[in-house]
């Protein structure tokens, strides 16, 4: 009767999967903290231009987005391939920007209104004509703080 006798009927113990959920929860919290809700569905294709001197958008809750680019595949049959402006969830024209800015302003609290920033999210291949129109319209509604969204180039 040796002490170290192997018992032949020993089975491999099952791996406890109780901590698996903890790992997944950790991943979940990571993603919850680092990401933010996507508010609108993209209807235009935007490939951002690259820049090296970019700065981070400070307050995301104060930003309104104007997307400019060619419509995605599903909308090309309806709207063509020319660059269009997307505000919220639909295609708009420059004349609608005024209402859009007014609505965004109303949604903000009184104190935050002067810090409102308009983020121009435009495709790198669009022509400046449409962007100039947008800029002029923004000046007319005195939404003067703007940001040209760009990717950080390495």
């Amino acid at each position, binding site marked *: 009767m040796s002490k170290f006798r192997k018992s032949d009927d020993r089975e491999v113990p099952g791996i406890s*999967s*109780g901590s*698996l*959920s903890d790992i*997944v*929860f950790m*991943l*979940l919290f990571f*993603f*919850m903290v*680092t*990401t*933010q*809700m*996507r508010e609108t569905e993209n209807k235009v294709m935007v490939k951002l*231009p*690259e*820049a*090296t*001197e*970019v*700065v*981070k*958008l400070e307050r*995301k809750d104060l*930003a309104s987005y104007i997307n400019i680019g060619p419509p995605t595949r599903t909308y090309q049959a309806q709207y063509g391939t020319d660059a269009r402006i997307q505000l919220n969830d639909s295609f708009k024209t420059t004349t609608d920007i005024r209402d859009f800015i007014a609505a965004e302003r109303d949604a903000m609290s009184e104190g935050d209104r002067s810090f409102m*920033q308009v*983020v121009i999210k*435009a*495709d*790198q*291949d*669009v*022509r*400046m*004509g449409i*962007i*100039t129109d947008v*800029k*002029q319209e*923004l*000046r*007319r509604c*005195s939404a*003067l*703080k*703007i*940001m*040209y*969204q*760009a*990717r*950080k180039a390495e």
Partner: protein
Amino acid sequence: MGKKKTPAINSSSTADIAFLLLCYFLMTTTMGSQTGLSRRLPPMPEKDQKVEDTKVNRRNIIIVRINSADRLMAGGEPIDVTFLKEKVKEFLSNPYDDPNLPEKEIKEIEGFGACPVSKGVISLQNDRGTSYSAYIAVQNELVKAINELRDEFSTRTYGKKFLQLPEDKQEIVKKAVPQNISEAEPKEVGKK
């Protein structure tokens, strides 16, 4: 022997629930990495206001033009985008007090004292046909020039890079090296 053990609750399915939640968040959210070039647009001029009063001295302005073929013109001569930064830096710093380059004005800066501040303004003009990527590339070069000037100024006075300075010092540097980029009224530049 009357005590009965409560059976352990099988916890292996909590992982599945957490995975479901994880997938939901992966689908509905975006990574928070929004970066870009910040700008301030000039306010719209009033209807009865004259345009003349905004005119600045000839030497204080450099006109950067991009035409519809994305060609660049700075200060009256065609230039490649890679040389733009040096040109703008020379224009804004004016190291030898050249009478053709912008004049400097001694300004009192709060917390720093008197400091010569360049009165130079970069006027950026573009055509309706200019591509957005070329426009951003030029904007980027202009910002780079100003950032480098700010870095130089802050290393000279504080011995540190601009971004490593505390916020109040950054404000001083910002006042000493202002970012005067004017996005001019739309014009037809070099239309063919």
